[in-house]
């Protein structure tokens, strides 16, 4: 099993330069807008949220990063701002909490973490969209699991690429 428990002394905390902190989420939102409609289940802003949250291992930083990225995504859509914001806030908090307790630096654990948090994201998103905004959404487990798998597969090389921007705190 790739996920291993580590003591807090073993966990490395990373930080990112300001240009990276601003540019990477913006780039993710920008690239997401260019994806063909049929692959919109790929959620690049979500992957970036998980990456930053896990790497920083700070719950506050994680939830704030998720909140900002989510609201960026909301601003480009045609429904009220906050639907993606709430979902990504929860994911940011959860991923950073997990990052504090577990070593999620290797490919296998990154795959599983992304798989898990994609589902969490979708559950929160659907709950908010249906419960608060009254959007009609069609939930399909096969579709969601397939999308979670696709995102998890993409997360592995993407996180390796983003690792280059890490700086030890």
């Amino acid at each position: 099993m790739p996920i291993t428990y580590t003591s807090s002394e073993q966990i490395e905390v990373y930080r990112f330069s300001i240009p990276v902190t601003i540019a990477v989420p913006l780039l993710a939102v920008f690239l997401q807008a260019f994806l063909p409609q049929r692959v919109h289940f790929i959620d690049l802003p979500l992957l970036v949220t998980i990456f930053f949250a896990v790497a920083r291992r700070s719950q506050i930083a994680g939830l704030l990063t998720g909140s900002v990225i989510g609201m960026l995504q909301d601003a480009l859509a045609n429904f009220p701002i906050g639907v993606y914001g709430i979902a990504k806030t929860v994911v940011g908090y959860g991923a950073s909490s997990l990052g504090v307790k577990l070593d999620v630096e290797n490919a296998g654990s990154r795959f599983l973490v992304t798989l898990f948090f994609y589902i969490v994201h979708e559950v929160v998103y659907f709950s908010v969209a249906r419960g608060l905004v009254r959007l009609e959404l069609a939930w399909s487990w096969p579709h969601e699991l397939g999308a979670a798998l696709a995102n998890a597969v993409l997360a592995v090389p993407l996180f390796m690429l983003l690792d280059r921007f890490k700086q030890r705190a």
Partner: protein
Amino acid sequence: MDSLLTRYRNVSILAGVLFLQVIGLGVQVRRKNDMESSRLIRVWVVSAVTPLEKGFIWAQTSTGNLWRNYLYLRGVRDENRALRQQIEQLRLEQVRLSDDAHQARRLQALLGFKEQFISKTVAAQVIGSSGSVQSRTIYIDKGERDGLAVDLPVITAEGIVGKVLRVYNSTSQVLLINDQTSGAGAILESSRLQGILRGSPTGQVLLEKVMADEQVHPGDKVLTSGGDQVFPKGLPVGTVMSVEKGRESFLDIRIKPAANLSKIEEVLIITEKQEREPSLAEEGAARAVDILADRLPSVPQPAPGTVVGAKPAAPGATPASGAAASPTPASPVSGQPKPPVHKTPEAAPQGEPAKPPAPPQTGASGQDQ
């Protein structure tokens, strides 16, 4: 108390951030129109993202043009030959259509119908989308400074695409017809049955409010009805894909959009429509057959394969001429600044089978929760 807050500091902050976002959502949902409450955030984000998108599209287009226009010219001779043959055929067709056009304009003038002509359009390039599965919107590279405004219809040569939802300085957001919050008035070309065009959560286009006892068949063409006050009457919407019995004695009709909504690169925004009576002197580009078909009271012709409501014409209906009954699809806009395009009569033609669903106020403007 302090130690409790310190101990649960992170959870408290999480709860606070979530609470603020829920409140923000509540405010936006409560207001019918979120244009004002969240406009500032949207302007910031769009201003940050769209310059990148425009730059990317420019680079992509330039590279593509260089390749297509100067490097990759294989098969151009053959294509040229085929196009010349097509021109000859079209010339013959034009002669026939110009006769029809003349006849149509004469009859229109006699009947005193007013037409809506598309007098001004703005061409725009698609520079991105919302990037969300549930939000079917696109961004175009024209905005307020190009004369765009909210609720203007957006079309392609194939058919309608959507309408302008939000306008920024140099970009605009377009709500596609397959978004679940969109709506438009539509009419079946052959049977003249009216319905409401809506998007579904899964991105399909549906025609609603058509009674279950009507006969609609796959392949029937769907046009805009003009009843929504957004789209001019007679623009192609798509064709019927499937028909099933739905809830509450209505049919579930799935439409295949005429425009390929997932691959739109360029669009036209209708910025100005003129309403005037046609004059005999006008000899604009064809569509005469459509004008006749739309204007004259007609009895649907029961042709094999096409299903007409099998309803008798209303009293007073005048049988259509052969040309009138011809279900040629309305050809929309040519992309020229002043194409002689579509028309909406002030009143429905007499004898037209009235299928009454109230024209939607194109849901989208009201959809902004």
